[in-house]
C-alpha cells in the first residue's frame, strides 16, 4: 500500500515516513456476522422455548448410569475396532503392494469383499455365525482337534460387533494406508535399501513413518465415522450408547430427549477426537516444515515478508527431499 502511494506521487520516495497506512475494511465480514447472529438467536430461541425437547429430561439422563455405560462401550468398540482396522489395513496394504502375486490377490479380494457388502449384513453375519458353523475348534486341519467350543457360546454380541466393525474397517483402512505408502517417493525406499535395510525394515523405519502424514487425516475421519457406525450394533443388541438410549425411550416414550442425550455425547467425543487428531498430525509433520515458519513463524516475520521482496532464505528451506 505504501509502495503504491509512493509510485503515484512521483518524488515522494524520501517523504515515505509521513504516509499513513489505512487497514483494508471488510464490510462483507460484518454482514456475515450479523446474519449468523440472527440465525443463532433463532436457533437458541427454538431450543429453549420448544417444550417438546424436554431439556429437564435430557439433564436427567445425560449422566445416568445406563447412558454412561453406553458411552464407555461405544468408546471401547470404537477404539478396539479402529485398532483392528489399522492393523489389518497396514497388513492388507502391504500385501497388495507385495511382489508376491498370491499375497497381492488375496489382499485385493479382502478389500473387495469387505467393502462390497453392507456393514449391517456383516454384523448380522458374525452374530448368526452359529447357524453356519455349529462349533469352532483349534487343531490340525483335517486332523485331530485340541480344543473345541460351540459357536453360540463363543460369539457374544460384543465379539460379533468387534469382528464386524474391525474387519470392515480394515478394508477401508487398507486403501488409506496404500495411498499413504504410494505417496512416499521411491527414492526413499531405495535410500533405505542402499544402507542395507531389508524390505520390512524399509517399510517400518522409512516408508510408514512418512506415509503417516498422508494416512493420519483420513484415519481421524474414519475414527469419527466409526464412533457413529458403532450405533449399527443396535441390530445385534449390544448395549452401546444409542442402544442404551433406545432401551430407555422404549420404556418411557421420551424419544426426542434421549436422542438428544446420545447426540450430545457423540458431539462431545467427536470434539475430543478432533483435538487429538491435531496433535497426532503435528507429531508426524516434524521435519516437513520449512525452518523459519516453524521456529520464528511470528506475525512480525510474515508482516515483514509482505512488504519486502521475498528474502532468499525460503528458497533454500523449501527445497524438500524428493
Amino acid at each position, binding site marked *: 500500500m505504501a509502495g503504491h502511494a509512493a509510485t503515484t506521487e512521483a518524488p515522494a520516495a524520501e517523504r515515505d515516513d509521513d504516509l499513513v497506512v489505512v487497514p483494508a475494511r471488510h464490510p462483507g465480514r460484518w454482514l456475515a456476522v450479523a446474519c449468523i447472529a440472527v440465525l443463532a438467536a433463532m436457533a437458541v430461541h427454538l431450543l429453549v422455548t420448544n417444550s417438546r425437547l424436554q431439556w429437564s429430561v435430557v439433564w436427567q439422563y445425560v449422566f445416568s448410569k445406563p447412558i454412561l455405560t453406553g458411552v464407555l462401550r461405544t468408546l471401547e468398540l470404537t477404539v478396539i475396532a479402529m485398532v483392528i482396522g489399522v492393523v489389518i489395513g497396514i497388513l492388507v496394504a502391504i500385501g497388495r503392494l507385495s511382489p508376491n502375486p498370491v499375497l497381492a490377490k488375496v489382499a485385493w479380494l479382502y478389500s473387495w469383499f469387505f467393502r462390497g457388502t453392507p456393514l449391517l449384513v456383516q454384523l448380522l453375519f458374525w452374530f448368526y455365525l452359529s447357524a453356519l458353523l455349529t462349533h469352532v475348534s483349534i487343531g490340525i486341519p483335517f486332523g485331530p482337534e485340541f480344543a473345541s467350543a460351540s459357536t453360540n457360546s463363543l460369539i457374544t454380541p460384543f465379539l460379533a460387533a468387534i469382528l464386524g466393525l474391525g474387519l470392515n474397517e480394515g478394508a477401508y483402512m487398507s486403501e488409506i494406508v496404500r495411498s499413504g505408502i504410494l505417496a512416499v517417493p521411491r527414492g526413499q525406499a531405495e535410500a533405505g535399501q542402499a544402507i*542395507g535395510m531389508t*524390505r520390512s*525394515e524399509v517399510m517400518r523405519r522409512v516408508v510408514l513413518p*512418512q506415509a503417516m502424514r498422508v494416512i493420519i487425516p483420513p484415519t481421524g475421519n474414519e475414527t469419527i465415522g466409526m464412533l457413529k457406525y458403532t450405533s449399527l450394533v443396535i441390530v445385534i443388541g449390544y448395549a452401546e450408547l444409542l442402544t442404551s438410549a433406545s432401551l430407555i425411550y422404549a420404556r418411557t416414550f421420551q424419544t426426542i430427549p434421549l436422542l438428544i442425550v446420545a447426540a450430545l455425547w457423540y458431539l462431545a467425543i467427536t470434539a475430543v477426537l478432533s483435538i487429538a487428531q491435531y496433535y497426532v498430525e503435528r507429531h508426524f509433520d516434524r521435519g516437513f516444515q520449512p525452518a523459519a515458519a516453524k521456529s520464528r513463524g511470528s506475525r512480525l516475520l510474515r508482516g515483514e515478508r509482505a512488504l519486502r521482496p521475498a528474502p532468499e532464505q525460503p528458497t533454500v528451506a523449501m*527445497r524438500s527431499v524428493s
Partner: protein
Amino acid sequence: MFEARDIHKSFGHVEVLRGVSMTVRRGEVACLLGPSGSGKSTFLRCINHLEKFDAGRMWVDGELVGYRQSGRRLHELHDREIAQRRSRIGMVFQQFNLFPHRTALQNVMEGPVVVKRAKPRELMEEAHQLLRRVGLADKAHHYPSQLSGGQQQRVAIARALAMHPALMLFDEPTSALDPELVGEVLDVMRDLAAGGMTMIVVTHEIGFAREVADVAHFMADGVLVESGLPAEVLGNPQHERTRNFLSKVLA
C-alpha cells in the same frame, strides 16, 4: 576389489547395458562419464542390487553380486542376504534421498542402528565425528528441509560412510545442486578419495574427474566406448562420441 564382466541388462525390449566390463582396484577412484540415457545409473544400480542384470558376472570384494556360490551352483540371494551385501556398499544419489522425518544426526545413525543393531548411545560420538568430517558439525539437529542442497548431499555421504562401506557409488552427486554448492560436495569426495576409499563416480564434473580419478570410462549406448587415464580419455579422446560429449559438457 570390483570387477564386472560382460554385463547385459534390458528393460523390456530395450537393451540398456550391452556388455559392460570394468575393473576397479582397492583404493582406486573410477569416474564414469557419458551422455544422459547411456546406462550409467543402471550400471551403478546393478552393483548395488537395485536392479538385476540379465547376463554377465560382477564381483564386489570377492563376492559375486546377486548370487551365493557353493561348488558349481549359484544360488540367487534372498532379501536378507542382498541387504547384507548392500550394507557394505555405500550409495549417494542425485536427489540426496535423505530421510525427511529424521535429523541430520538421525539420518547418519539410521543404518548402524537398524541394520547393525548398534546402540544409539554408543554411536553418537562416531556420528558427530562423521558430520564434522563433512563440515556439518553444527547442523546435527537440523532436519533435511532446513539444509541447503549441498549440505543435504554431504549428510547423505556421511550416512553412507556410517556403514563403513568397502566401496562407494556416486550417481551424479552434484547434478541437482546450484552451481555455487557443487564445490563443497566435491571437496568432501576429494577428501574421501585421498583417504583411500574405493569409489565409482558417475559425474559430469570433468575437472573433478581429471584431478581425482585413477581411471575414466566413457559410456555411450550401454557400452564403454573408451577407458583409460583421465588425462588421456578426457584430454585426448580417441572416439568421435567422446569428443562430441566433451565438447558439449565443456562448452
